[in-house]
């Protein structure tokens, strides 16, 4: 195996940079290595060793650096709840004495090496009897012998390799859901089968064979056609009838009504003609119509199965919670938490319900819930809101409110979450359908009346011919194909939508609301400024100190130093971390400390100023501080520049107003800015905008935005890593593509233009067909040609224009 060797020529002392053999991250050669392979951290090295010892190094041959960097070492009892029989029962698909089977959702699955390793788990754990990866859904179905390996050990093994499954009650409830696509596939298959056969049997009619063909054979073929048409009507078309019926009952006309009328007229008239032996009918058109329509439906229903857009708080909360009752710890599920329980919360775990802190102190990271950027220190007796993530030592808390009544979960009791989207919004095609249906019925009636007066013998034929030809097949195909293609264009540019109709909604947006923390500011990206004296040695000491700590400010300093040239990571001695205060240690007889002002002995100094955090240091006689400013996302300026003329903008943040001045310089004058907003406030703000007639796009990232994301017309969740969890939303945008948002919105608007152009094309076909129909000239063979040709033109036009547009717009 060859490793990539990059020599930096600009540095005074050449630093050899290599890529980690396991995960591909940059690392320093020779620092952490085994044989000739370099690793970026001990975690990666350890995984390599495990695989190497078990002869599973094929993992590295299939793809280069396929590994997943372990972000945090799994704690000893992180998965202890999996031993609870109650939880096991909820998770397992099958359970017996010697065999258990379950499906795990593992977001880290990303390449063929992953598939290979996970399907060769039995080499690592003989207790595993079978394992199978569904790559598209990022799921692992694993069967094992519970007498050899427990569920907990299995999950721990996976986590230690970097394949930590996301286990939540939510997917426990969801897993039995039947894939609706299967039914659609079968319907398409049946429709295609019937369509093909009917066409084949209609060939004699197309070619006008009169001579040697027996009348009996011809009748036989016609009746066989009717047989083939039966599944088309009674199986494939049911969705359209049901949708038309429910539309009628609710009192609005959707596109499925003219389609249903067309389907029924086609079928009934054809059967009548065949039975009365007057004409061969239009059953081939019927089959083709359904076949194309269902393909359009499939195109529109295409979704990103690996992503979930419907998560509520249950997906974030731990599945198992440790309760301390009478001095004994037991694993219980979220539902079993009662007021007055004492719970044990470990490092990196989420506090499941509003509760009171019993331990002496705790550091809680609320960034996901409130938008505050730094972890908050809490002392004994403090009130802890649900949803915060514990950073540091384990704590005990006393439950004060039930899970469903908590600060965060109350959000889900709002009626926004119980309402479904149906009926609230009408798509362009449904708006057109209303007029379309009325016009078609009027033309059909006018034709019938005219022929009744002129020549009653062809009244019935021309009336039904109008209904058949007017069946808006091409019209119904225009939207799914345009939006479906646009959606996959977006997807290949890392913007994933829940479904294709979101593009239409995106095109109508008039107001954009941004969240601050994590949305326009970047979590891991910050500017570091050093004030005071600090020499090379001191710098290296600070570097070594922060490398040992997991505090967010330490991580920021660490990534800052890692980028600096010529700085070597030294070995640290006498390292000590004083939780919530700072770090101290020694490198080559230079000792020093770094941390809060009070810890380092600074007088009259603050840890927070104008939204910047300060970390003080005292190293020998050198002292000073690092100022860490939350940096805005790259491309924010250009994005705001492109958006400001066309949309109303707002900024709404759960954080304090410290950065208001800096933000004001970024946004155009008159932008509404609100700070210290609770999740409920955000939702209310979006609602108030909507009441003033705005169509709102909410861009957020955390659970605290969940209400606003749901309430808004379009809610987009921004995430650093697509496979990580994001709140329920309409679209997930990769953070690196943030500045492209304006381009996406522009593209959505153009897509709407393409839909309208497709409508025009399909109307033109309808006019040609109608003019034939009203004059009573519509032969089956014309209908049979016109229907597929119009559909194919529209589909080709829609698909090609979107592809062309992607090129032109340089999306």
């Amino acid at each position, binding site marked *: *195996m060859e490793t990539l060797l990059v020599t930096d020529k600009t540095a005074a002392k050449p630093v050899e940079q290599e890529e980690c053999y396991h995960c591909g991250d940059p690392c320093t050669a020779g620092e952490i290595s085994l*044989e*000739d392979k370099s690793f970026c951290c001990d975690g990666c090295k350890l995984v390599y060793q495990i695989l*190497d010892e078990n*002869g599973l*190094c*094929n993992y590295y041959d*299939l793809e280069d650096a396929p590994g997943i960097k372990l972000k945090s070492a799994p704690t000893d009892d992180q998965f202890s709840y999996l031993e609870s029989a109650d939880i096991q029962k909820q998770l397992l698909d099958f359970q017996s004495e010697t065999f258990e089977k379950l499906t795990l959702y593992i977001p880290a699955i990303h390449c*063929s090496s992953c*598939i*290979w390793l996970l*399907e060769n788990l039995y*080499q690592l754990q003989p207790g595993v009897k079978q394992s199978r*990866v*569904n*790559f*598209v*859904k990022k799921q692992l179905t694993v069967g094992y012998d519970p007498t050899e390996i427990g569920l907990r050990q299995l999950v721990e093994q996976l986590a230690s390799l970097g394949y930590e499954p996301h286990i939540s009650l939510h997917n426990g409830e969801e897993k039995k859901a039947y*894939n609706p*696509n*299967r039914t659609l*596939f*079968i319907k398409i*298959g*049946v429709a295609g*089968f019937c369509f*093909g*056969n009917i066409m084949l*049997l209609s060939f004699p009619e197309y070619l006008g064979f009169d001579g040697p*063909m*027996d009348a*009996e*054979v011809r009748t*036989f*073929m016609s009746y*066989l056609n009717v047989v083939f048409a039966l599944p088309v009507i009674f199986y494939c078309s049911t969705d359209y009838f049901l949708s038309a019926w429910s539309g009628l009952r609710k009192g609005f006309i959707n596109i499925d009504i003219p389609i249903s009328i067309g389907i029924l007229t086609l079928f009934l008239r054809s059967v009548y003609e065949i039975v009365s032996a007057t004409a061969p009918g239009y059953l081939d058109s019927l089959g083709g119509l359904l076949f194309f329509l269902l393909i359009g439906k499939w195109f529109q229903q295409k979704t990103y199965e690996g992503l979930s857009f419907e998560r509520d708080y249950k997906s974030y909360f731990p599945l198992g919670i440790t309760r301390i009752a009478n001095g004994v710890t037991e694993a219980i599920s979220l539902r079993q938490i009662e007021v007055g329980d004492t719970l044990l919360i470990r490092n990196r775990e989420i506090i499941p319900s509003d509760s009171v802190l019993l331990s002496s102190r705790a550091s809680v990271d609320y960034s996901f819930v409130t938008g505050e950027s730094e972890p908050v220190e809490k002392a004994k007796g403090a009130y802890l809101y649900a949803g915060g993530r514990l950073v540091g030592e384990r704590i005990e808390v006393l439950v004060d409110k039930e899970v469903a009544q908590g600060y965060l979960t109350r959000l889900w009791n709002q009626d926004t979450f119980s309402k479904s989207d149906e009926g609230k919004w009408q798509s362009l095609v449904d708006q057109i359908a209303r007029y379309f249906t009325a016009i078609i019925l009027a033309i059909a009636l006018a034709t019938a009346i005219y022929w009744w007066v002129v020549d009653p013998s062809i009244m019935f034929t021309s009336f039904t011919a109008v209904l058949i030809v007017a069946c808006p097949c091409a019209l119904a195909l225009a939207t799914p194909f345009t939006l479906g293609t646009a959606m996959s264009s977006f997807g290949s540019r890392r913007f994933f939508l829940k479904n294709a109709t979101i593009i239409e909604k995106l095109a109508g947006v008039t107001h954009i609301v941004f969240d601050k923390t994590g949305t326009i500011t970047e979590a891991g990206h910050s500017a570091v400024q050093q004030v005071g004296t600090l020499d090379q040695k001191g710098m290296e000491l600070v570097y070594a100190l922060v490398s040992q700590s997991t505090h967010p400010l330490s991580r920021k300093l660490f990534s800052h130093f890692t980028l600096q040239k010529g700085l070597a990571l030294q070995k640290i001695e006498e390292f000590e971390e004083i939780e919530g205060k700072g770090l101290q240690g020694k490198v080559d007889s230079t000792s020093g400390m770094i941390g809060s002002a009070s810890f380092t002995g600074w007088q009259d100094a603050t840890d927070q100023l104008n939204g910047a955090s300060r970390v003080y240091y005292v190293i020998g006689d050198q002292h000073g501080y690092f100022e860490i400013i939350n940096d805005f996302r790259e491309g924010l300026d250009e994005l705001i520049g492109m958006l400001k003329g066309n949309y109303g903008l707002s900024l709404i943040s759960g954080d304090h107003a410290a950065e208001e001045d800096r933000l004001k310089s970024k946004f155009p004058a008159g932008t509404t800015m609100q700070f210290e907003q609770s999740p409920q406030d955000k939702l209310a703000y979006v609602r108030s905008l909507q009441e003033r007639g705005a169509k709102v796009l909410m861009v957020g990232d955390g659970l605290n935005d969940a209400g606003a994301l749901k309430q808004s017309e379009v809610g987009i969740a921004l995430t650093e890593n697509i496979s990580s969890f994001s709140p329920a939303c309409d679209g997930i945008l990769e953070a690196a593509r943030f500045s492209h948002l304006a381009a996406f919105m522009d593209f959505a608007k153009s897509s709407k233009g393409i839909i309208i152009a497709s409508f025009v094309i399909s109307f033109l076909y309808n006019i040609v067909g109608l003019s034939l129909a009203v004059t009573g000239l519509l032969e089956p063979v014309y209908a049979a040609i016109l229907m597929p040709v119009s559909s194919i033109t529209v589909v080709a036009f829609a698909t090609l224009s979107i592809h062309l547009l992607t090129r032109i717009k340089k999306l």
Partner: protein
Amino acid sequence: MLIIVGLILISVLVAGFFLGAFIWATKTGQFEDTYGPSVRILFDDEKKVDKKSSPAAQE
């Protein structure tokens, strides 16, 4: 001409068989994962290299 009727029925039967195969494939979930099988077929069955017995194998 009766032979045509027979032939048509046979052809429908054959086509029906394939339709059945398609439905079966869909119902057993063969269209669920469209990426996995393409990779899986390329995996070697057993490639367990005992490293300790072949120290020279490393480049």
